[in-house]
Every structure is written in C-alpha cells, then in structure tokens.
C-alpha cells in the first residue's frame, strides 16, 4: 500500500521547550550556528514560533507553533520551480525530498516556498573540534551553497525499510517516526500515514479543531495543526507565524 506520511501538531500541548528543534539538528547533522548566523540565516528544519493574540499586557496570550516543511501535495511550489530537479516528491511516501547533491543554490525554491521552511547553507558546516565525532552516520552533512529542509528524517525511513525487509515483512507504523516526534516530551507532535484512517494525522484531519497553514493557496500540506483557541486558528493565514514579511528569510 502506498503511504502518504503526515503529521499532527497539537498547539495547545506544545510548551515551546525546543526539544524537537535540537533533536532534528542532532539527527540530521545540522551544524551549530555560525558566528554570523541569526534568525534569518540560521538553519532550523523545524522551528518553534511563539505567537500571540496581538494584545498587550495583561491581555497578551501566547502559544507555540512548530513549523517545518509542510510536505505539500503534488503541486509543491518548490518542486515546480527547481531547475535542477533537486526537489522530488517520493511517490511511495509522499515525502517532499531535497537532494543537496543536485542543488545549484539558486534559491528559487526558497522564494517559492510559502512557509519559509527552506534554509540556505550560507557557510560550510562546522562543529567545534571533536564534536564531529557525534555526527549521525546515516546522514551526510551538506556543503555551503545548497538549500536544505525537513524530509521527515528520510534516513530513519530507509533504516526502517531495511529492518522490516530483513525481518521479511512490510514497514509498520511503529517502525518509523521522525526525530522531532520521538523527542516531543508532551506528545504534541504525532506522525503517521494519512492513508490509514486510524493514524493520528488522519484522525486530526477529520477533527473540527484542525487547520493547515495557508490552506487557501491550495498546496495541500500534510501537516495538520490543532487548537481550541480561535486566535491560534487565525495565524494559519499568515505567511509565517510570528514573523512579518520583512523578516522572512532568503
């Protein structure tokens, strides 16, 4: 059966601890910040934004919204603009993959991505002396001048496929979860196959409190957010939660 992996994020449970962000960086060999990096030039495949209801103290209320590649459907804007075919949608999983080996660094995809979920390597990846020993052997570090983004920990998917094949069976739901899902201490992020009605994202897709970011532009994202607060739902129409247009990356 062909899978269509997706995610559900319960905004009301997210404490903004940042465990997903660092677990992702550890898993995918994303280097620590260069001295000149800031919130525009840094690389965070998943980034937790603190959003608020727009009011001042003492009526201010905040929530935390993790934003990663929304894994758009077949019309992913980044895939259609890439001149190098470095962006591919895996028909077996629905995962929008990025191949840094093919990437020219033109950043058309970054301009096209409505979620600002793609990141450019402004510097060569560098770790403090000795720390490169802690790199994940399943993922190659990317070089300066290419774009990268979340791929639902594709290395884990490959490993799960191999393990399942070695045991003579097909991949099960428990075999494969991305690092951010595993690290989330509150269980706010859940992962699964949208084609399986009993999976958490499939259930979330049917939940009345669910919403997707920028749903109106028809990218068919596979990340479903959930919140009982109306003002949290309203941020779904912003280009990037918590950021004004002038502060978007690129």
């Amino acid at each position, binding site marked *: 059966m062909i899978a269509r992996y997706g995610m559900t994020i319960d905004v009301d449970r997210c*404490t*903004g601890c*940042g*465990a997903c*962000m*660092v*677990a992702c*960086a*550890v*898993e995918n060999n*994303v280097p*620590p*910040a260069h001295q000149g*990096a*800031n*919130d525009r*030039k*840094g*690389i*965070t495949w998943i980034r*937790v*934004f*603190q959003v*608020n209801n727009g009011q001042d*103290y003492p009526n*201010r*209320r*905040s*929530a*935390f919204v993790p934003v990663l590649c929304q894994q758009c459907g077949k019309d992913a804007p980044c895939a259609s603009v890439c001149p*190098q075919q470095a962006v591919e949608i895996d028909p077996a999983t629905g995962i929008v993959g990025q191949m*840094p*080996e*093919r990437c*020219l660094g033109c950043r058309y995809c970054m301009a096209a991505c409505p979620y600002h979920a793609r990141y450019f390597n402004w510097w*060569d990846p*560098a*770790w*403090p002396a*000795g*720390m*490169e*020993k*802690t*790199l994940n*052997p399943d*993922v*190659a*570090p*990317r*070089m300066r*001048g*290419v774009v990268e983004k979340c791929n639902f920990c594709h290395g884990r998917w490959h490993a799960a496929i191999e393990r399942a094949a070695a045991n003579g069976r097909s991949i099960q739901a428990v075999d494969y979860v991305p*690092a951010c899902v*595993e*690290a989330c*201490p*509150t*269980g706010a992020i859940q992962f699964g196959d949208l084609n399986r009605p009993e999976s958490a994202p499939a259930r979330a897709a049917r939940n009345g409190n669910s919403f997707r970011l920028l749903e109106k532009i028809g990218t068919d994202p596979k990340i479903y957010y959930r919140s009982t607060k109306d003002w949290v739902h309203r941020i779904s129409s912003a280009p990037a939660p*918590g950021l004004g247009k002038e502060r978007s990356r690129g």
Partner: protein
Amino acid sequence: MNTTRRDLFKFVGGSVVGALFTPAPWRLVTDTALWSENWPGIPRPARGEIRTKFTHCALCPAGCAVRARCVGDQPVALAGVPGHPLSHGALCAIGLTAHHLPYHPSRLKQGPAGEAAQAVSAAISKCGPAQHAAVLDLRPGRTASWTYRRAMASVKHGLYLAPPSPFGGSVAFDLHQAKTVLSFGAPLLDGWGTPGNVIAARENFRLIQAEPLESRTASLADLWLPIRPGAEEALAQAIANVLADGKPRSPFAAQTGLTEQQITSVAEELAHNGPALVLDGGQIPAVMELNRRLGSLGRTIVARRETPVPESWKKAAPVTNLASVPDGSIRVLLIDESVMDAYLPWSMIERKLVPDDPLVVTFAWSRQGYARHAQYVLPAAVYPEIFDDIPPAIDSVAAVFRIAAPLVEPPAGMVNPSEFIGGLAGLPAADALRQRADAIHQAGRGTLFTCAGAKSVPVKEVKPDDFWKALNEGGCWLDAVDESGAGHRFLWPANADDEKRSSAPPEDLPLVAITCETRAAAAPLSPLMSKLYQESNLRLAANHAALNPATARACGVGEGARAILRTHCGSAQIEVSLDSGVPPGVVKVAAGPGIMDLCGASARAQVVPA
C-alpha cells in the same frame, strides 16, 4: 572548398554556443557540487557498529533516563526511555544535546590539582577559632555529598553547606494527588521537577499560575494571574484571608494588582477542588502557610524516606544552610559545581568569606560559574563522562537511586571532587557508590527497574553483583512507598529573600528585573542550542532583555540597543528588545554569566543607554 581561419573561429564559436544548450554545463555544475560535498572542509560522520547504552542525565536534579545511540563507544544521539517510571520517556532540549558537552569550546582540560591541595591544607591549618573550612555542595543528597559531610566531620572547623531546600529536606510534591495547583512563578511546565512526570500528571490537575510575566507555564496554564512583581507573598496572604474570613484584606489585595473577586475565586477553587497544592519559585513562608491551611501537608506534600547509606557514614557533618553561617567566617571554601541544581548569587557567598585572603577552590568543567571568582579552578568531568548518582527530584514521592554511568571516558587530568575532598580527611571515595548500592540492596526494600527490558523486579530477588551491574547499565532503584511518613515534621523556611530586603530604594532603581532562562546561567549548553537562542527567537539569549515599549522609551533605549542593567549588586551590559507583553516597569532579562550574580531571581534595577 577551402577552410579558412575565419571558418575555424566560426566553428569553435558555434560549438561553444551550442554546448551551452546541451546538458553538459549543467552536468559540470552538478559534478562540481558533488565534488564540493566531499572536500576536506565537510566533516564525515564516523561509521561503526551501532550500539545502545542506557544511563541517567546528570545535568539537573530530574535525572531523566537516557537511551544513547552509539557508534562504537561514541554516543551520537540521546533520547528518553519510554515506560520509565520516573521520567516517562521525556528528555529536555538540554539533555538531548548533552553528548556534545565534552567537546564544548569552553571545556576546562587542566588545572593545578597538586598546588590547590597544598594551598587548601595550608589554609585549613591557618583557620582561627571562629573561622571555617567549608564545602558548598550545589547538589546535596548524592553519595559524593555524604563523602563531603564525612570529610568535613574530620576536618578542623569543617562545615558542609547546601542551598536551602523546601521544608528542610526530604519532602516531595505529589502532583499526581493534586486536583488544583496554584503556582507562584514555579516553572512547572518549563523544567520544574521531572518534566516527564509533570506532563504525565498534568491531565489530572487544574493549573493556576500567578506571576508577573507570561512565562511558558503561564501561557499553558488553565488560568494566568498577572500579579505585580514581588506581590507573591501579598497574594498568598490575601488567599489565606479568604480561607479564614471569607474575603481578602484590602492592603494585601491592592498590592497584588488583582481584583478581590479574582482572589476570592482562586481561594474558593483551592478550598473546594482539592487536594490542592501551592508551589513557589523561591521559599515564601506565606506560601508554605497556605499549604498548611489547605491541608496539603501529608497529602500533596509528603515526606520521603532517605535513600539508605552504610551505617558507618552516618557520623557526618550536619547539613548547614549557607544563610545561617555568620558573615566573614569562611576561610577555605571548596565549591563542587561539576553538577549544579541551583545557582546562588556570588554576593550571597562572598559575604560569608573572611575579608583577608580567603581561599576559594571550585571543581568545574567550564569557567562560566563560580570559577570566575576562585583562586583555583580544578577541571572536573562533565556529563556524560561523570560517574555520579542523582538524588530524588522534588516531585519524586519515593526514594530513588540511579547512576549517571559514563557514556564516554573523561580525558586525562580531570579531578574527581569527592576524591579530592575525601583525600583531605583521608577518606577513600572511589568505591563509595558501590558501598551505597550494597547498603540499598541490604535494606531489601523497593524494586529495580531495568531500561533494556523495561521491567521492574523486587530488589530481594536480585543478587548484589547483578544489582550493581544493572545500576551501571541505566537501572534505577525505587523505594517502596513510605507509610510511616504521616508524622513527619515539616520545617518552615526561616528567612525571606535577604537580597530583596537589602535592595536599594525604588527612586534609584525604578524597575524590577525578572530573570528567565536560568538553566543557561551556571554552565554552558551544547553549541547546538544556538537553534533556540540564536537561530530562532524561541528563547531569550543570554544577556538579552525585553522591555515594554513604554518602559524602554522612559529609559531612553530602543529595539536592538545596547544598554546597562544596574542593580544594587553591580551592572552588566544587555541588548534590548521591545515586547508589549512585558508589564510596564519590568525588565525581563535572560540569565547569563554575571546576570544571576546581579539579579538573582529578581531585583530592583535600572536600565540606561550604554
């Protein structure tokens, strides 16, 4: 047909233009990209056999269970252990990146251990009758703490110092029994207690958070009470008034910034939706009194048995609260900051030292903490190199014993604090953990949880050697629930915050500085934490401050400006950002080297342009 020179040029030119329309140049670019991926500047991950090891995180008192994915013996990723009875599979962002700490650029690798030992011995022999040699233990209750206490019992004028603890010691807050929790600024959902345990209990209680800033806990609480800075005690007293008389007394209610109706409603909820639990970030006597009034003592605040120790260890120096030591009386101070639960502002420690030539020695893995003030800084192992036990967390109802077993070998030249301090009194400390494990096994109560199989077995069914082996492989001993704790005598905190009382008058220091992100204050975090502090705006970076725009205008500073933060303890440079969610008159400042010494948890302050 004659081929001319012109034809040759036309052919070459045409070929070049034509080639541009073929895939060749693009292929060349791709190949260049492939080549550049493997140039020497790009590190290559090491390959090897994948193994799994288990241990416990020693970075904070939660002591969460850790599953390490290793390539050979090198950990490459850390994760929680699902099904663990204490940490429930959770691990915080700091714990997830702890395997980077041995390679941190500010890691200390050498120090004058021999010279320091001689200096300490000489200074102890010079101690006058009213002077002391003291050990300040920033994580009391460990096996190493017992070594320090035993050593200080043998050393002339020896003192064993520890930060104050709630109700004077072995007391736990049982969130699983609580139906309503009122928190006075305790970061319940941002690192308090054992994060996994708090999350596991969260579904069952209603959380009311009273604090001036909308912290992470406040934003996720069922009700946030935005009180005025420093009004915690007034609110506790106002609620106590409602419980006693049915309404709050006006002076207290007015100080809080809340309406009488809000206070009455909270008090009624605490009284009628019990069992209740009231927590605070510090130790406010009125908060403790509120717990007594609500009947929390013995229900949601319970006595916890001590983890067994060998009988011969009990001839040890008593635990002394730093605040109760006379000022100017400590000649020799040894500070174990290799593991640290709380950072005490240096001003609080400094005034206890003798004025003439005190000797301060610290055991640390970086120079970020007290090492900045010490004559000798001795390099200590850092988690995940250390071999140490972690005492029960504040929300652990039963006694526990778990070991932070090393995942990697510490480099040569590290000084073991308990061996150094034990050596001053001639105590062998190397086998102390094994001796304590044997004492626990001998007591015969409780169960042993093993991470590999996620199973619990009664200790009586395990042989001593197997018990020790299991503890070294990430096992955890959990005591049986203590039924005899009902008669426990809870001790009340003796003093309020001295720092606040001695603060300068508000005319000089018109603002209130409230410190956040305190986990980064004492020791560096993994360089990868830049994802949270530098590459995103998720957390306020060290020495950054947020002010309400109106407050900033009054101070003459703007967005991104450098400014000076001044308190009665000194001043430091900060970078300002504007946030209309911060109350007027408040500076929300992120802890960093120096900021905790300056502000503690909160202090009167002034911000001026740099």
